[in-house]
């Protein structure tokens, strides 16, 4: 990627982005869909966009997904 492309990507905003509050409100639902191998981004496209754009929410998503997939109780 060119330097201009890198900056362009950083500055680009997506109107589908639902923001942190809305994404965190359904994070558990989204994570269960991902963990079950379902199309979470298809169900919640605005959440998917946000999790890619927002570092902290992306971290919460990664942490919760790891927590449920590593859960010794399994995912029955």
């Amino acid at each position, binding site marked *: 990627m060119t*330097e201009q492309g890198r900056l362009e990507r950083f500055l680009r*905003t997506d109107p589908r982005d639902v*923001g*942190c509050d809305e994404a965190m409100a359904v994070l558990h639902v989204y994570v269960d869909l991902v963990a079950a191998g379902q199309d979470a981004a298809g169900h919640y496209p605005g959440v998917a966009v946000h999790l890619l754009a927002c570092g902290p929410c992306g971290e919460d998503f990664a*942490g919760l997904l790891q927590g*449920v997939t590593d859960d010794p109780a399994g995912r029955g």
Partner: protein
Amino acid sequence: MRADDLDEDSSAWLRRLSATGGERQEAERDLHARLVRIALAEVRRRSASTPVAGPELDDVAHQAAGDAMLAILAKLTDFRGESRFTTWAYRFVILEVSSKLGRHYWRNPPVRLDAAQWERLPDRLGIDPARHAESAGILAEVRRVVDDELTAHQRRVFVAIVVDGIPLDALAAKLGLGRNAIYKVIFDARRKIRRALVANGYLEEPGVEQR
């Protein structure tokens, strides 16, 4: 949602946590042990991206598990079965870890608020050091837009997050704002900067803009 509409594991958690006496106490101990395990794993996963370290990191995990436990018990009737119970519950502890790491950042911050380390911007944006010179013009324009066209609040937040690399949750804690409020400021600032760069011929693509 009725308990018999839930998956077996979630139904059992609700039944045990809604019981009385020893059954409920045992369920609370089980859940707390899980929250502690999740919190410890999470602070370790994030250890490279936070200045919080050592025993303080474990303290954050235990505090997060305790506070999450209280929140879960207080909101048990809010659980609607949209996910597994454990996923719903673990979300509380993950969000508590984020919030507490944000607050603990200021005990020993690697960067002070309002440091404005503009010379670090190319690195923050992932620009190859060998190409800093050729990107100097466009980055100077970014700084001009930040200085001249952002509001004072937008400028302070943009500089803290993007230029100085202060974690968003840490800035939110410092300014007494929610994460979403900070994100929205950055979102609007990015859009404003981009529009200015396009208007002044530094960027060409129309990109996604409307909102």
